[in-house]
């Protein structure tokens, strides 16, 4: 969804990076382009203005102009602010209530409420092993209740039997009653689409909310929405006190500005995204990853997750302990190199790393490839146990011996030692974040690619 915004911003930043020192005018010009890119991505104007003002404030300050890499600094500020705007951590569905936990789905006409209700029902039943009941309060749209019934059948999730004459509030009450009597964990209430300016319909939804006391009131909104996103999200939030947002049609090619807008004006987290018409096409939303992806910074979190899959858990724990004690040695580095190769080698990793294109070029110039990793493993292999534990022992004669043993040059050995030191420093810094922080902030021992 965010590809084109990513490309636009990438161009802006590339132009910026080509200049060495940045004047305030350079920064201002870049921010004007960022503004246009965001607007073309359908981020709502008030949100864009706010954003640019915040970035501008930080960017024209000493922070950028005096920094060694001003352009990177601007990119970093934009990234930080973007992440902040999308909300930090991903937020899950709240079920902490006396059962049945009630979830109310609301939104404009055709936004995807009924489909999302069934998707969520399926997800809660399948992943969370909950007993779920779904009920349609839509007495307006032709065949709306039938639609949910059919979807319930497809998902294998129970739906409240339909009654032809009941009004929405009465259906809601009956759903909760049934939920209590029949021991359901969760009751999902699908509602008719409504305009936020339709007082009567909004009052109806508010009445249902008050009567059912839901743990979640989810606004289901279309990712294709334009500037209206702020107006509608604000109105729904003010009237119904939303707890979160579900963005649908994220499988489209919209630039996704609505996500930024709605989160920014309501402060409500985007909890889930719809990525298709099928019932399993519902995913959690990860704000940080999206911010990075928008800026073309690679999906660092996915990288870490992939790493976590590949790394033996015990190894990682052992390593984390060692790092905290500052005892990262050459054996550990060898382990990291092995893991790196297992994860698809340099090329495989690159796809997930920030600034891919550029790094790839640098690597090509530096002759970093698979063979280099193999050689590095060999160098470590020809060290003695004691040497591997203590880098300070590596004097000239030892280096020559190691190089000869590994079929490498002394320069190669020196480069490896330099790299080891860099990684070790990084590790010490990461170690301060604790074990959890380590897993979240980066793969332990992953040598920064640029340090090869």
């Amino acid at each position: 969804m965010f590809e084109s915004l990513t490309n636009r911003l990438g161009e802006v930043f590339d132009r910026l990076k080509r200049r060495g020192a940045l004047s305030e005018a350079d920064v201002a010009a870049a921010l004007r382009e960022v503004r246009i890119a965001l607007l073309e991505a359908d981020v709502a104007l008030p949100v864009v203005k706010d954003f640019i003002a915040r970035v501008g404030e930080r960017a024209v300050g000493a922070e950028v102009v005096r920094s060694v890499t001003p352009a990177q600094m601007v990119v970093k500020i934009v990234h930080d602010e973007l992440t902040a705007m999308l909300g930090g951590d991903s937020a899950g569905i709240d079920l902490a209530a006396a059962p049945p936990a009630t979830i109310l789905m609301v939104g404009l006409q055709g936004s995807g409420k009924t489909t999302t209700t069934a998707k969520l029902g399926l997800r809660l039943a399948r992943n969370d092993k909950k007993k779920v009941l779904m009920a349609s309060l839509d007495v307006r749209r032709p065949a709306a209740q039938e639609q949910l019934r059919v979807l319930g059948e497809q998902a294998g999730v129970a739906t409240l039997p339909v009654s032809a004459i009941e009004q929405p509030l009465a259906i809601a009450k009956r759903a909760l009653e049934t939920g209590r009597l029949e021991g359901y964990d969760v009751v999902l209430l699908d509602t008719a689409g409504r305009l936020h300016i339709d007082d009567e319909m909004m009052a109806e939804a508010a009445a249902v909310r008050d009567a059912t006391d839901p743990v979640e009131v989810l606004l289901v909104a279309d990712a294709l929405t334009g500037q209206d996103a702020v107006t509608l999200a604000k109105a729904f939030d003010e009237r119904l006190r939303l707890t979160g947002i579900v963005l649908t049609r994220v499988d489209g090619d919209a630039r996704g500005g609505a996500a930024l807008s709605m989160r920014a004006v309501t402060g409500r987290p985007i909890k889930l995204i719809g990525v298709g018409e099928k019932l399993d096409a519902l995913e959690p939303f990860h704000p940080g990853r999206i911010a990075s992806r928008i800026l073309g910074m690679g999906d660092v979190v996915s990288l870490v997750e992939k790493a976590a899959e590949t790394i033996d858990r015990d190894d990682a724990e052992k390593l984390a302990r060692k790092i905290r004690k500052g005892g990262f040695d050459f054996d550990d580095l060898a382990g990291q190199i092995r893991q790196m190769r297992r994860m698809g080698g340099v090329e495989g990793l690159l796809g997930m790393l920030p600034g891919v294109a550029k790094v790839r070029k640098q690597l090509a110039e530096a002759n970093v490839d698979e063979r280099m990793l193999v050689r590095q493993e060999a160098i470590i292999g020809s060290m003695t146990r004691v040497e591997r534990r203590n880098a300070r022992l590596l004097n000239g004669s030892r280096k020559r011996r190691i190089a000869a043993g590994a079929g490498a040059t002394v320069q190669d050995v020196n480069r490896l030692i330099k790299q080891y030191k860099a990684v070790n420093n990084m590790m010490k810094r990461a170690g301060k974040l604790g074990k959890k922080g380590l897993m979240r902030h980066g793969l332990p021992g992953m040598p920064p690619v640029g340090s090869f």
Partner: protein
Amino acid sequence: MAAEAPPQQTGWLVRLKAGLGRSSSRLADGIGAILTKRRLDDDALEALEELLITADLGVQPAAELTQALAKERFDKQVSPDAVRAALAGTIAAILEPVARPLALDAAHRPHVVLVVGVNGTGKTTTIGKLAKAWRDQGKSVMLAACDTFRAAAIEQLEAWGERAGCPVITRAPGADAAGLAFDALREAQARAADALIVDTAGRLHNKAELMAELEKIRRALNKIDPGAPHDCVLVLDATVGQNAHAQVETFGRMVDVTGLVVTKLDGTARGGVLVALAQRFGLPVFAVGVGEGVDDLRPFEARAFARALMGLEG
């Protein structure tokens, strides 16, 4: 709804304005505030441009419109009304050529209309309204429920058929949509119906395999009547932002769209992207949807739309 001036001309204007009015009054107030405070200087122009952006006109069209305005009025003392009227005039001139209703050609029996669009934009509802309007003009209309994918889509169209008073050709859920279209056209020909409207499943334009399926429906209709479908209507949701460009472009390329219907103009979204679409594609806007009721379809009237957008009377 057709070329003949509909009787409820004043009615629709009032409705449209009521709908647009709510949102455009903000726009109008904004302009009022800008201009009573200061002259049409750079700041005022920038604010004006921003107001157009919030109506989904798009960054570039908004800039162009304000620049054109600046050339004429810059640095003169102008009244808010004059600025609004000028902008409305420019916008109306852009939209005028695309305000063309969907006219049934009596030479075709039936005149086949294929209705396409992204999920949930209002295709099925629009078909119901359109069928009703044509029925009211004494035409015989048939509907084909070619959305065999979405849950209860068939029942939904059947309910609309009942409201409009026209038969609906259906098959079981999951049936081949192209085959159904083929049969429906056969049947409509046999009955010499004036119009056959074909409902299709909503689909995102970036999904190639779903777009190919639409082509297949086209080909099936084509096999029976080389001219069919005689019209292909792309239904756009007024809340859509700049993605409307990609929708019109791709649907246009894949299935030869002959015109647009814009729905949900009774909300606060102003559908400003239509202005840029008119400039870029020049496709007719056949009608606009202003509610969920069977009578909530209106002809698209450029001047009224533009003036309502600017918060001006008729």
